[in-house]
């Protein structure tokens, strides 16, 4: 067992020195919860993307109604039942993820870009630039997020769906960078005092390259972890906004809006549970999968974290089994 621990699954002859990235991948793969999250995430994303492509290609009409099959409970024909207009809920639930994915992805990219930029500038230059950026962060941070998003969405209430989607991405992106910027700044402050940065200065490397090539790669792992959390919270925020009817509206479905229908009147909440339980569960599973991946990544980038690889786990299991058998054999004798 100790042999496998030292060589991390490689045979002794290989004498491989693992790069940090390889170590992170091995650690991540050996984390069962994280891998479960990863596969769940992949599954949901691919189903949602395939559904979206299918509805786009076949020009699926989300506003098409059929009064003869309204409010049907789940059956083989309509796995998630139908809503009060006789629309198939399963398609609406799967398509509902598309908006969440878009908003989550775009706003996270935006938040990470701004956060990384602001954080590294503040941390690298320090002084006045730092204090100005920190003041800006304080102002943005002291804004109640939901209330602000609420207000801005209300301003754009009468605009078409695409505009509002764009606005929501902008709001989330422009607000959610502050936490990341603080993190990056803190790291930069300590990194810039280290000798390798002194070396880059002595070598006359440009400031931009000092930041881009030498500082940012050092914080990247942390940024990725933080980005997964931003992604999860962006999706949650979008669903909050659609729940309050401030995001994209009918006939385009979103998870939050599908849930909101249940809350808006008690009949659908009580009798037609399938209309809101399925989108709610999907939203929950999706956010959970992102959080699991984020948690796994956080553990994987921590050099101190202990882990057991799949092979080791198997070996231990076999060991325990052998012990048990030995005991049983002893007892039998």
């Amino acid at each position, binding site marked *: 067992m100790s042999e496998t621990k030292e060589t991390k699954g490689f045979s002794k002859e290989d004498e491989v020195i693992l790069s940090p990235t390889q170590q992170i991948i091995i650690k991540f793969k050996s984390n069962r*919860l994280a891998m479960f999250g990863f596969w769940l995430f992949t599954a949901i994303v691919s189903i949602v993307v395939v559904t979206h492509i299918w509805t786009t290609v076949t020009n699926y009409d989300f506003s098409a109604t059929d009064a003869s099959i309204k409010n049907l409970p789940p059956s083989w024909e309509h796995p998630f039942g139908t809503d009060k207009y006789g629309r198939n809920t399963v398609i609406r639930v799967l398509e509902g993820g598309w908006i969440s994915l878009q908003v989550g992805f775009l706003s996270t990219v935006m938040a990470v870009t701004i956060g990384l930029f602001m954080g590294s500038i503040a941390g690298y230059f320090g002084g006045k630039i730092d204090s100005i950026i920190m*003041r800006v962060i*304080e*102002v943005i*941070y*002291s*804004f*109640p997020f*939901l*209330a*602000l998003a*609420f*207000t*801005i969405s*209300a*301003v754009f*209430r*009468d605009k078409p769906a695409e505009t509002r989607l764009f606005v929501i991405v902008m709001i989330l992106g422009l607000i959610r960078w502050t936490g990341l910027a603080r993190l990056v700044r803190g790291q930069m402050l300590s990194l810039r005092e280290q000798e390798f940065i002194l070396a880059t200065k002595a070598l006359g490397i440009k400031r931009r390259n000092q930041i881009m090539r030498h500082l940012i790669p050092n914080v990247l792992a942390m940024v990725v972890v933080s980005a997964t959390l931003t992604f*999860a919270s962006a999706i*949650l925020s979008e*669903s*909050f906004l659609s*729940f*309050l009817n401030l995001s994209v509206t009918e006939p385009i479905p979103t998870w*939050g809006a599908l*849930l909101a229908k*249940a*809350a808006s009147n*008690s009949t659908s*909440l*009580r009798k037609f*549970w399938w209309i*809101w*339980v399925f989108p*709610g569960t999907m*939203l*929950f599973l999706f*956010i*959970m999968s*992102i*959080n*699991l991946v984020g*948690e796994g990544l956080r553990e994987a980038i921590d050099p101190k974290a*202990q882990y057991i690889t799949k092979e080791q786990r198997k070996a231990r299991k076999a060991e325990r089994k052998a012990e048990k058998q030995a005991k049983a054999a002893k007892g039998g004798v």
Partner: protein
Amino acid sequence: MDNKDIRGSKTFLEKAMPYVTYIGKRLLSLIPVLLLISLLIYVLINLMPGDPVMAMLDPEKTAAMTIEERNNYVESMRAFLGYDKSYVERYFIWLRDTFLEGEFGYSIRFNKPVNEIIGAYIARSFKVNIIGFFFAFAISIPVGITAAVKKNKFFDKMVTVLSIIGISLPSFFVALLLILLFVVHLKWLPFSGMSDPKGIRPEWHYLVLPVTVIVMTSLASLVRYVRAAMIDVLQADYVRTARAKGLAEKVVIYRHAFQNALIPVVTLIGMWIPALFGGSIVVEKIFAYPGMGYLLNQAYSFKDRAVLQTALLFFGLLTLLGNIFIDIGYMAVDPRIREGKVK
């Protein structure tokens, strides 16, 4: 150490003075930030479409009027609400009224000054949140510490999995599921609202579900926070020293480690100050619980600008005060920060 003796000989006033000056400085530094926030709020609110004066008109009252009478009436209302002035002027009037005179404007939804209505809403939000946070802290601190002490054991793994599930649950989904279970199926609790018109149910019945949602959604992140803080502390050198001295494990954990693990928890209390008074827009909407979130929600649908401006400014102020609270809390519990900052 001698240091302690010197401190001990100081009078209370001498000891408190550095804190007072520090708090004073921090409060002064709030003013520019607060002004900036107020400007942002003002611009945003006034970007909202719709004419507040027209929205306030009573159709029954105006129907009987002639056009001229109606115009006069509208103009007088406009002057009464202060909308006859320019945007810039109105901003400064709003600032003066709010900060110097404590007048928050006139609500077109309630037809009353905002001062008269807002207190009750804040109080109701506070009531439900303080109960929720009390339970959340009471549960999460022991659970988080136990999980940290038993790191990588079964209990810890279970707590980790449950807390990931907890932080992934959207609060409105939890709320709806709870309603389905306790209101629709078991019929134990009322659906929504604040008080029973027939007076059959005691008030606390209406608090159970909102409080449960608050506890369930905040518990998970709290437990993770406490656990992480405690794990950090347990790896510290002084804990090793304490163990090396031969102290009992209980003493090590509860006297040496736990007190220091509380430091990050202080931050959490500060972060929750806004939510404590502000309530939750979504939870209060689902349960029709008349707190600040509910008020805000209504103010949006009625485009009630005075209420919106006041409520948003109030949230902003609370967040800023929460930040100050965090710093002071750190000073109070961590002597290293205290010595560094107060001097």
